[in-house]
């Protein structure tokens, strides 16, 4: 997935253009005013300071944090596609811990909730890790299955142990004031953005400046070669990568609770765990690219709301753009890989010929 020879920026831009092209075409066919709709999309995402901070960037935070975790896992060749479930595990933990830390100093309360959420996310992926390493069960299937379990668990939590005291709505009571993140004045943008950016830089340094980052990539690109000639403990790398990706997804859930909703309810996530797959992929698993792609997808989801308000275009239409972007990136990668294989085959054939 990460071994493309095509220029990443060019591919990303091309994919983006294709996505918007398909959207504009679809809008025109369906009889909408495509110009008005795309204008509304832009205004909803970047039209004002409030739109940028409180709509786009607030949505970008969980996408970046989850996307970073997935980039880490995908680099190791571990396909965690259950980030949505780990996000919910983190959100449940954050809600519970957030209710206990009432009298604590702010920094300590927030830190405790974040760590608790990350641990919960990591715990949620322990079973898939064990199943993969012990029984060879594909993590693709196990992480996906556990996503549905997590959603049912949220449903249970908000109608049972974590339900609000008044027991009217299926939601939790808000977390303690001490555990709520400070916000940028005049907006809904919370401290989580700073954490997301710091994590991106940290992972970037880890991937590019440390031997561990290189071993991770080697383990993902060619497990056999890494094990045999590189003496890299591939299985352990895989397990560790999955655990960290679970922790980051759990942290994403914790950030959503401490920074945005302050309470737990069903459908807290509009599919962040799945969109984050597109984010990681579009970023070519590069941490700083994840920030750019996360902001882009945050903008798309924010703009979609504006498009629905102003032009009557269903907000779900942006999923089509997201899908087209992923498919174009995949296609470009595949074509580049095949060209590389043909070249390699030609070189091999030429070198076998007698001189």
């Amino acid at each position, binding site marked *: 997935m990460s071994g493309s020879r095509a220029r990443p920026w060019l591919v990303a831009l091309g994919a983006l253009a294709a996505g918007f092209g398909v959207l504009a075409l679809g809008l025109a066919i369906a009889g909408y005013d495509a110009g008005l709709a795309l204008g509304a999309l832009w205004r909803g995402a970047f039209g004002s300071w409030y739109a940028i901070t409180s709509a786009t960037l607030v949505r970008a935070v969980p996408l970046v944090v989850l996307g970073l975790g997935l980039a880490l896992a995908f680099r190791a060749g571990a396909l965690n596609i259950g980030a949505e479930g780990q996000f919910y595990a983190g959100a449940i933990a954050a809600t519970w811990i957030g209710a206990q830390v009432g009298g604590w100093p702010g920094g300590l309360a927030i830190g405790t909730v974040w760590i608790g959420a990350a641990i919960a996310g990591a715990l949620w992926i322990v079973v898939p890790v064990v*199943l993969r390493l012990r029984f060879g069960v594909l993590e693709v299937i196990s992480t996906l299955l556990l996503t549905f379990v997590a959603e*049912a668990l949220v449903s*249970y939590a908000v109608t049972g142990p974590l339900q609000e005291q008044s027991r009217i709505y299926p939601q939790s009571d808000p977390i303690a004031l001490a555990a709520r993140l400070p916000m940028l004045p005049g907006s809904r943008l919370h401290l989580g953005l700073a954490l997301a950016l710091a994590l991106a830089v940290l992972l970037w340094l880890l991937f590019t400046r440390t031997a561990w980052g290189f071993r991770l990539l080697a383990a993902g690109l060619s497990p056999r070669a890494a094990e045999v000639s590189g003496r890299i403990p591939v299985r352990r790398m895989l397990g560790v990568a999955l655990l960290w990706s679970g922790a980051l997804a759990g942290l994403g859930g914790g950030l959503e609770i401490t920074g945005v909703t302050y309470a737990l309810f069903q459908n807290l996530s509009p599919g962040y765990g799945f969109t984050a797959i597109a984010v990681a992929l579009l970023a070519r698993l590069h941490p700083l690219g994840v920030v750019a792609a996360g902001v882009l997808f945050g903008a798309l989801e924010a703009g979609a709301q504006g498009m629905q308000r102003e032009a009557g275009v269903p907000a779900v239409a942006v999923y089509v*753009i997201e899908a087209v972007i*992923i498919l174009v990136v995949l*296609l470009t990668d595949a074509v580049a890989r095949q060209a590389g294989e043909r070249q390699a085959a030609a070189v091999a054939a030429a070198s076998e010929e007698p001189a």
Partner: protein
Amino acid sequence: MSELTLILGGFLAAAVRISTPLLYAATGELLVERSGVINLGVEGAMLAGALAAALGAGLGGPWIGVLAAVLAGGAVAAVFAAVALGARADQIITGTAVTLGAIGLTGAVYRSAYGAGGPGLSLPMFAPVPIPGLAGLPVVGPALFAQPVLTYLAWLLVPAVWWFLFRSWWGLALRATGESAEAARASGVPVRRVRVTAALVAGGLAGLGGATLVLAQVGTFAEKMTAGRGFLAIAVVVLGRWHPGGVLLASLLFGAATALQYAFQAMGLGVPYQIFLMLPYLLALAALTVRIHGWRAPAGLGKRLS
């Protein structure tokens, strides 16, 4: 009739009803996985089938709805096949993207076609067709033999797929492709054509599952109405150990687990219903760890063709 038989009969009928869309989608996924491909686009194909069924049935009656659903599911699968099999891109991510796109497209088309109100109750549905004699049996009669025609078709599909997989040359070619594409190609099997065909048929079956959901169960379309049933179908295939009979049993088990919550509610027992929502997925996870000789995933599952 005593209260218990009423509850039991209702439970069985609900289990069968809930299992039918799963059975279609899972049988399709079984075929595609046996050819060595894992297709997460099955959720998207099912959703597209559900919307097409609603649109088609509104225009020309339930059978037109079924036809439209099969075509829509096949079209979604064609996108998957083009990217994952044609261009040999990553199957998992392609499938995820295809599902994402189908969610967006169906949502947008649905809102454009029906507005916010939805298609209402005017949708023509498949009525239950009691089988003379059998439908009169106590408890199991109404549950098993007074079902819509799509349920009977799904049951007939099981032996048909079994025969195809284990008694026909093309079934052998399909299984060989799934075990080792290189070896199959060496013995003259057109590997890519087998996989593409399996993917398209699976898409059609997933669409049929979506049609069953709309035209034989719910009676209307709603956004994201498949709610993960396509992903559940993948779990059904795992639990059914990649075998048509196993898939039938597994989908009935999943249907029963879901129906159990209604039965428990009817009996007024204070067990949280979410336990029953989790049960099928936990069962599938547990089933993955159990090794039974000869009952395992195709060896080449998810691998790219070279």
